């Protein structure tokens, strides 16, 4: 499903964000991406929805080589990928419902479908009762759950999360990770970048470990 083949990313200042990284994540697997700050986790994640591009090597998603894709094809690719960020990326002046509905509106769903799907997604993350609330009225944990609901509302094939529990307390972090596990259980391919080794160790999930932009090693599930 997600395939990196000799991928390097060199920035304009000459620094390598990624260097010769190769791995393959089959469909429906859940994988953690770990490494210290600056190890290249975010750079790697940004390449999957074609927000960044390798300077050499190939990134293939669902068998499609992203470098051979045209710009106008990116939106279709991105509609198949749910992304959860540490800093939420929510629209503060809109309500919870409107934030979660965004990917469906962009994909051209009708209003009835949007209502049905948004309510289902919010129900899944336990925020159905707060659908009319403004984002700024929510706590950090609730905002992150809105973020997850928005990433999943479009029923993506791939879910990417970049430090999704960075600002949350351990209990909430565990709750969020459990939700990711639930989505993995229904066939979604999940890739979570995190440096919270303590939390990651509680899950029997393979780990791709990056170190200074290079693939250090891959730890299979234990």
């Amino acid at each position, binding site marked *: 499903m997600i395939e990196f083949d000799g991928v390097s990313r060199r920035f304009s200042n000459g620094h390598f964000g990624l260097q010769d990284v190769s791995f*393959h994540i*089959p*469909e429906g697997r859940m994988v953690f991406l770990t490494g210290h700050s600056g190890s290249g986790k975010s750079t790697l994640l940004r390449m999957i*929805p074609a927000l960044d591009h390798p300077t050499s090597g190939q990134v293939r*998603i669902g068998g499609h080589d992203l470098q051979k894709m045209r710009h106008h094809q990116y939106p279709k*690719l991105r*509609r198949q990928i749910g*992304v959860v960020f540490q800093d939420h990326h929510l629209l503060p002046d809109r309500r919870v419902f409107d934030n979660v509905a965004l990917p469906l509106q962009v994909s051209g769903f009708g*209003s009835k479908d949007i209502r049905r799907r948004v309510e289902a997604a919010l129900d899944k993350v336990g925020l159905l009762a707060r659908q009319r609330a403004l984002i700024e009225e929510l706590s950090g944990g609730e905002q992150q759950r809105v973020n997850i609901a928005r990433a999943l509302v479009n029923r993506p094939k791939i879910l990417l999360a970049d430090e999704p529990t960075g600002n949350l307390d351990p209990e909430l972090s565990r709750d969020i990770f459990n939700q990711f596990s639930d989505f993995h259980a229904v066939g979604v391919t999940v890739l979570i970048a995190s440096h919270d080794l303590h939390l990651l160790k509680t899950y029997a999930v*393979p780990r791709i470990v990056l170190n200074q932009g290079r693939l250090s090693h891959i730890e299979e599930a234990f």
Partner: protein
Amino acid sequence: MSRASPNNLTATKTNTKSLARGEHALSAWAHHHRRCFKDALWRLLKRPISAWATIVTIAIVLALPGFIMTLATQIKQIGGMWASENGQMNVYLIPSAQTDQIQSFQTWLNHQSVVRDSRLITPQEGLHELAKRLNIDSLTDIQPNPLPSVIVVHLDRLTGDTVESLQHQIRTNPLVDNISEGGEWIKRLQEISLFFDRLSWWLLGLFGLTVIFVIGNTLRLELQERREELSLMALIGGTSRYMLRPLLYDGAITGLLGGMLASVIIYGLLTALAAPINNLATNYGAHITVITPLLMTALLGIIGLILGWFSAQIIGRNFIKKSVKL
């Protein structure tokens, strides 16, 4: 990690296509347009001072060429009406012109579209008129009569071009010795009108560019504020067209309101100047019909709307291309 090559993306692409084909996609598209329209109005209400400052600037910028254009129309009307009432041209024929030749020439003249009618003054009639005007009866006894036959041509609703064309055709006729420059004043009036007409179009072009920049600058500020939202749209699969749509509504509505306000300013100016303009028109024996406010509002509104839409296209596309990772 095992190697596998599932091709889910292809399958999901097909789903998206089939969705796009359905009526849901059409209704979602229409819904997005409605939402963009409502949001654009809401943004106007949310920031009334900055929005209306832009609209008033556009109105003033569009009012000047609009006003000059209206003046040019009035001058044209005065020229046309005066020509219709009083315009005439005297055609002096050569002494050897025969009666049947003169008659056929007069018939030809009467068939010209800009000629209302014509009257033949024979040399004898001319001499009688002259004697009567000078009050010298013995003038009628002059032999041989030195006056030529004259055809007085009454002109109808002329423009400078048609006067010139008719004069040229008459001059090249072998029966014609000379013609009076009776239509010269119309030509001058039409030239003034043409000057104002061209000036107004040039100003409209120039000020139209100004409108594009004014709207563009407002939109650029708005885009800076919405940069994160646009990045998010791109991340969740929004196309550049989808992201651009709200901006097009912002630009078009701002331009439309600016154009409509410009028509109010012009109508106000015309109303204020109505008395002196009508006095001037009366001196030329003409009556002014001011362009109806509704027509002017519609015209300037459409011009404003197009300029606003165009501005949003340029600024929006450029911003999205440079600032949003597509």
